C-alpha cells in the first residue's frame, strides 16, 4: 500500500511523461476545490431542487438539508480520494434511516441525479468561456459522478432488499404459530399456501417447540390449507416421523375431502399417520393419549405411534 503511494508520488515529481495523468488528477483537484468553495451555495441549490422536484416528501426541509449536506461532503470526498467505502457506509446508514419513512428507490436515484446535474451546471458556469477545459473537466468528473450515483443507488436497493427479506421472515414466523394448549400438548394450525420453503420452516419450528416444551402430543390442523400436492403431503409425513423421533405423537386434523382424495390418488403413504376429522376431535384424542400416559405410562406406551416398538 505504502510503496504504491510513494511510487506514484515520485512519478509525478520526476517523470514528465506522467503529465497526462497528472493533468487529469490536477483537474480533479481543481474540481474538488471548486466544490468545496461553493459548498454552501451548491448544497442549498441542490436541496431547493429536491423540494421542487417533490422528492423525499416524507422528510422535512431541515432533514433534507442535513442529509444533503452529509451526502454532498461524502460525494466530494469520494471524488477527491477515489475511494467509495465511506460513501457506501454512509448510503447504507442513510437508507436505514429513510426506508422506514417510506422513501422509494426512484426518489433516491432522483436526488443523486439532481446533485450530479447541479454540480455539472455549476461547472458549465465556471468554465463556459473555456470550452476545451470544460470538456476535460467534465471528462474527469463524469465517470466519478456516475460511479457515485451508482454506489448510492445500489446501497439503497440492497438495504431495501435486506429489510424486505427480514419482514418476509418475520411474517413467515408469525404465520406458523406453534401453540401450547396445555402441558405437553402443542397445536400447529396451518393456514394458507404451503410451499417447500415454508413447509421446511414449519417443521423446524415445530420440532424445536416439541423439545422446548417437552411435548408428547402435537395436533397439526390443516383445515386452513387450500391445496396439497405430493411434495407438501410427503413433507407432512416427514414431519410426523421426525416428531416421533423426538418422542411426540402427531395427530393430523382437518384434511378436507378434496385433499384426502388427492393424497390417496397420488399415492402418498399416510398409513403411519393418525388422523382425526376436526381440530376439536383431535384435541380430545390428544387429551386421551396424555391422560392414558399419566395414569399408566407403561402399558400404553407400546401402542402409541410416538413410542412405536415392534417385537
Amino acid at each position: 500500500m505504502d510503496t504504491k503511494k510513494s511510487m506514484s508520488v515520485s512519478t509525478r515529481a520526476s517523470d514528465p511523461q506522467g503529465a497526462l495523468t497528472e493533468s487529469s488528477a490536477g483537474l480533479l483537484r481543481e474540481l474538488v476545490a471548486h466544490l468545496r468553495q461553493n459548498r454552501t451555495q451548491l448544497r442549498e441549490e441542490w436541496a431547493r431542487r429536491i423540494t421542487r422536484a417533490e422528492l423525499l416528501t416524507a422528510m422535512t426541509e431541515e432533514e433534507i438539508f442535513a442529509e444533503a449536506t452529509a451526502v454532498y461532503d461524502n460525494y466530494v470526498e469520494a471524488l477527491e480520494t477515489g475511494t467509495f467505502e465511506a460513501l457506501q457506509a454512509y448510503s447504507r446508514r442513510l437508507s436505514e434511516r429513510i426506508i422506514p419513512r417510506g422513501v422509494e428507490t426512484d426518489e433516491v436515484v432522483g436526488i443523486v441525479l439532481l446533485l450530479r446535474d447541479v454540480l455539472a451546471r455549476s461547472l458549465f458556469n465556471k468554465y463556459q468561456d473555456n470550452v476545451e477545459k470544460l470538456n476535460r473537466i467534465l471528462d474527469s468528473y463524469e465517470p466519478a459522478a456516475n460511479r457515485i450515483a451508482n454506489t448510492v443507488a445500489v446501497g439503497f436497493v440492497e438495504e431495501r432488499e435486506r429489510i424486505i427479506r427480514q419482514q418476509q421472515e418475520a411474517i413467515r414466523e408469525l404465520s406458523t404459530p406453534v401453540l401450547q394448549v396445555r402441558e405437553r400438548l402443542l397445536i400447529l394450525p396451518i393456514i394458507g399456501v404451503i410451499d417447500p420453503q415454508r413447509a421446511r420452516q414449519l417443521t423446524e419450528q415445530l420440532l424445536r417447540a416439541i423439545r422446548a416444551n417437552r411435548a408428547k402430543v402435537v395436533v397439526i390442523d390443516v383445515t386452513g390449507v387450500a391445496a396439497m400436492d405430493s411434495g407438501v403431503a410427503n413433507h407432512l409425513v416427514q414431519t410426523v416421523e421426525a416428531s416421533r423421533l423426538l418422542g411426540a405423537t402427531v395427530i393430523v386434523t382437518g384434511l378436507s375431502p378434496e385433499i384426502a382424495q388427492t393424497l390417496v390418488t397420488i399415492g402418498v403413504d399416510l398409513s403411519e399417520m393418525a388422523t382425526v376429522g376436526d381440530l376439536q376431535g383431535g384435541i380430545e384424542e390428544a387429551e386421551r393419549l396424555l391422560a392414558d400416559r399419566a395414569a399408566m405410562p407403561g402399558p400404553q406406551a407400546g401402542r402409541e405411534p410416538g413410542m412405536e416398538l415392534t417385537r
Partner: protein
Amino acid sequence: MGEELRLPIAADVDVVEARQQGRALAAVAGFSSGEQTVIAAAISEIARNILMYAKKGEIILSLVQNGDRQGVSVVAIDQGPGIPDIERAMQYGYSTSHGVGAGLPGAKRLMDEFEVDSVVGRGTTITMAKWRRAI
C-alpha cells in the same frame, strides 16, 4: 469466495472432521442449523464412501456463489477402484458394503446438485452442492 478447504480422508476420524468442517462452512454460508445438519450428513456419507471403497482420498469444501445465491460445494476425490455401475450404485437401498445402503443416494437426496464421475480402475469424483433457498 476463494476459500477452499482440502481435507484428507484416510481414517474414520477424518470422516468426523470432514462433516464438522462442512457444518462450520455451511454456517458461514448462512444455512439454517437444520440445513447445516443435512449438509454434514451428506458429507459424512461421501467421506465414508471414500474410506470403504478407495481406502483414501480427499474432500474439498468451498463456498460458492451463483448470482445472488450462496451455497456450499463439496467435492470428493479418490483414486480407488471406481464404480462399475453408477446407475445401480445410485439406487436407493443398494450397497455393496455394509451400512443401510443409503450412502450415495442418501447424499444425493440431501443436496441440490449431485454428480458422480467414475472410471473403473482409476477412481471416483463426486461433486455436490447445496444452495440457500432464495426467498
